[in-house]
């Protein structure tokens, strides 16, 4: 067995992991990032929509290599066909750019490497090194060889699977109603509007979730679905609903599938703590996904930056490991916890709505002027249109 020593070992090479590695390395930390697959970024498990705010949040240049398309906004469409539009800056974490996630993830890994982080691909963390009540690194396998990787701080950025965060003892297990399961086709020959992402909501389309059409270029789009696990039955429920949706659409008629992806997202609240002595979880592994949209790229990358910067200050001697982890816990929550809590409540409400209620809701929201869109404005409009429906949302205020 080979032994390696680092300040920080990051398990997982997605946006959250790369962001931790990049900012920790920039701060002077000796960092190693592990990716279990032979290539960072592939296969894609994502709808590939992200808000443009990601650029300033993690200091990115908008590059044609990873940006497939830029959209003006999102359309939310109800079962009856009523809809409302949101401009991209109001549309949350998944609208703005449609990205090429494989190239995007690799780009972020390169930014980490440029700052000096080491990266090992095709490397699986098999277990945690636990000593004296602390986590002190991981055991890993790389091309048939065992490695003992010792680190002051171990970071779980292992995505939805979250094996590492759960093995460490964080409460990141999920209830059925807090999981959406997804499948997506990249389709060619699509006649959808290339300027808008489309979200189809309602039990008939996607029980507890939505169908999305994210245009990647003039004729190409990601067409996918997320279904709440609570409503799923044995045997490929999301796929069945997606096939039904595609068959019903003129704009998808004759379109060919060039890629198929599966995956799942947590639509839960994050646990009360995402840190332990010598250990932190980040991104999907820490259940930081937006429970309303299912978007996790921006939150993961932002939390990764907060953690990476704190770890940089740790190696500069400004913070102890305990203080750095406490600063991370406080910092990421300040940036997104209120939004996560609000959107979790919204997701819980939407899970209960019938298609008729969803029609009423979308119609009411559609009647609001765009610039006035806020939770309060939505509630007011719903109250005027459908007092009984407004009752259901009253605890939002």
């Amino acid at each position, binding site marked *: 067995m080979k032994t390696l020593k680092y300040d920080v070992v990051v398990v997982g090479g997605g946006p959250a992991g790369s962001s931790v590695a990049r900012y920790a390395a920039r701060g002077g930390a000796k960092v190693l990032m592990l990716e*279990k697959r*032979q290539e960072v970024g592939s296969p894609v498990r994502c709808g590939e929509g992200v808000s443009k705010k990601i650029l300033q949040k993690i200091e990115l240049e908008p590059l044609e290599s990873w940006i497939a398309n830029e959209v003006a906004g999102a359309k939310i469409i109800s079962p009856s066909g009523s809809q409302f539009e949101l401009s991209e800056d109001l549309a949350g974490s998944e609208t703005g750019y449609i990205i090429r996630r494989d190239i995007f993830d690799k780009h972020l890994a390169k930014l980490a490497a440029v700052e000096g982080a080491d990266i090992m691909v095709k490397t699986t963390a098999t277990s945690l090194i636990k000593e004296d009540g602390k986590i002190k690194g991981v055991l890993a396998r790389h091309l048939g060889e065992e490695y003992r990787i010792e680190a002051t701080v171990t970071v779980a950025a292992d995505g*939805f699977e979250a094996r590492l965060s759960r093995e460490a003892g964080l409460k990141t297990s999920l209830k059925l109603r807090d*999981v959406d*399961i997804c*499948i997506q086709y990249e389709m060619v020959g699509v006649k959808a509007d290339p300027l808008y992402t489309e979200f189809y909501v309602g039990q008939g389309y996607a029980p507890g979730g939505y169908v999305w059409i994210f245009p990647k270029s003039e004729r190409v789009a990601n067409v996918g679905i997320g279904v709440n*696990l609570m409503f799923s039955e044995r045997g*490929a429920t999301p*796929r069945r609903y997606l096939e039904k949706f595609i068959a019903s659409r003129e704009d998808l008629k004759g379109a060919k599938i060039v890629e198929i992806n599966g995956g*799942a997202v947590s639509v839960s609240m994050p646990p009360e703590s995402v840190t332990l002595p010598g250990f932190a979880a980040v991104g999907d592994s820490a259940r930081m996904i937006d429970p309303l949209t299912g978007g996790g790229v921006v939150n993961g990358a932002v939390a990764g930056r907060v953690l990476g910067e704190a770890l940089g200050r740790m190696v500069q001697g400004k913070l102890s490991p305990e203080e750095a982890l406490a600063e991370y816990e406080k910092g990421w929550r300040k940036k997104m916890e209120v939004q996560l809590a609000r959107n979790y409540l919204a997701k819980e409400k939407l899970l209960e709505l019938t298609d008729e209620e969803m029609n009423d809701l979308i119609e009411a929201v559609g009647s609001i002027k765009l610039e006035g869109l806020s939770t309060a404005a939505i509630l007011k409009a719903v109250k005027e249109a459908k007092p009984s429906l407004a009752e259901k949302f009253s605890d939002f205020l």
Partner: protein
Amino acid sequence: MIRVDKEKCLWCGTCVGVCPTLALTLKETYVEVDHERCTLCGICVRACPVGAITMEGVEK
């Protein structure tokens, strides 16, 4: 016993993330089942987006 159909599996890790006993591991291009840890709860069977997981020899 849980069985993962390698021909249907998309290696997406959904089953791994929903398994309450950490009995499943995604090894890049296949899912490994730890039958000692598996309690046959069936959540992975429900969760698999393409229906690649079945339970054999148990009526639930």
